[in-house]
């Protein structure tokens, strides 16, 4: 079973993603900030990471850069409310950039696609 790390500071959304992605058949771990995410990535194996950008403390872009410093092959999806980060080329470290919406279909599709590729 593929294991996904979700980094999302809004607790309700974290719960939603956990439930919905578990239903899709993945093992899901939810953390609420970048530091917690780094701790997990260092100690566990994940097949894919979904992360928000705007978070208290370190933001998602820094998180992605740090993860890339450790291992480059893990697929990353940026999942954010903002368009504007597309201007920041650092986001290219991720494999997809999804704008949050009330339907999780796009996110689920992308996860499936990226996990199939790897």
């Amino acid at each position: 079973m593929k294991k996904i790390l979700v980094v999302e500071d809004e607790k309700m959304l974290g719960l939603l993603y956990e439930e919905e992605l578990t239903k899709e058949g993945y093992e899901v771990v939810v953390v609420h900030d970048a530091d917690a995410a780094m701790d997990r990535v260092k100690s566990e194996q994940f097949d894919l990471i979904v992360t928000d950008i705007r978070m208290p403390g370190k933001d998602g872009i820094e998180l992605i850069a740090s993860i890339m410093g450790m291992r480059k092959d893990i697929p990353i999806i940026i999942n954010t409310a903002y368009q504007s980060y597309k201007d920041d080329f650092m986001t290219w470290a991720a494999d997809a950039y999804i704008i949050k919406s009330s339907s999780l279909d796009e996110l689920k599709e992308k996860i499936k696609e990226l996990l199939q590729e790897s």
Partner: protein
Amino acid sequence: MPELRKDMVTGRWVILSTERSKRPDDFRPPESFGVKKESLSFCPFCPGNESKTPPEVYSVRDDHTGPNQPGWKIRVVPNKFPALQPGPPSTKKLRGVNQWMEGTGVHEVIIETPDHSQEMADLELEHLAELIRVFRLRTIEIEEQYHHQYIQIFKNKGKEAGASLFHPHSQLIATPIVPKRIKEEIYGAERLFRNNFRECAFCRMLNEEMSSSERLVYRNERFVVLAPFASRFPFEMAIYPLEHSAFFRQITDEESRHLAEALKQALSRLKAQLSDPAFNLVVHHSPNPKVSNKAWPGIDSYYHWHIELMPILTKVAGFELGTGFYINPVPPELAADYLRKKLRIKS
């Protein structure tokens, strides 16, 4: 006593305020400024990370290497996350830029060198000339393939200029409309050509600048770097081909080498004399000839392509007082004099 100057082509007014006599120190930003300590542990543009960029559309690389792997000297890739994904048109009525974005949004990033910290100013001349050739080739290819009105070629360096990554890169965007500033230049040049000079206004200006030389920063056989008479911003520079041409795409290989030299001179001096400031660099050239021939017939007679280089300084800043009026505390003659100082430049 402020001095008023008018840019004859664009009609822009500049107020040069020359009250204080400037000491060289006034131009240097404080020590901590510009010293960028990069704490980021990853760069998507560096060699080894080719899989993080979209597949390259062009590259200059070592013979035995294939696309999307290390061994490249210059690499051109499309924007990975364009603002709007190209896709089927929606039922909403879209206009102008949105329509373009819905269709084929051409936005390319040119990664200038595999070396993460090697600035454009420090590139080998041959490499810089090669880079210019890449700009030309991409311009031609995109203009032939698509019907966009204009190809914007530009480079932002430094956070203050809007660059989000440290690794040296430039961008190329095809737009469905001609940017306002370019339009102003084209209209202004055309008016001067028709009503006043009967020759290219820029050529005329260049002749005058060469004879007076008080605003000259550097020149070689084919190109000249000068501080414009009506500079809007402190230490603003422009690079002009001495031979008249409206189309950047027409630059020859030999001219590319001379342009590389001029560009390197301009950038190196900026870097050395003003402590490596952030800057915006933009190519001003004619719109897509397929389009401009109808909209501006005869543009090749009166428009003259050039590069504008605008450093972003904080200690001596100019500002814009509503569109069309600028206040600049550093007269271009002073700027040129400061930038002309003898430097030992690695070539």
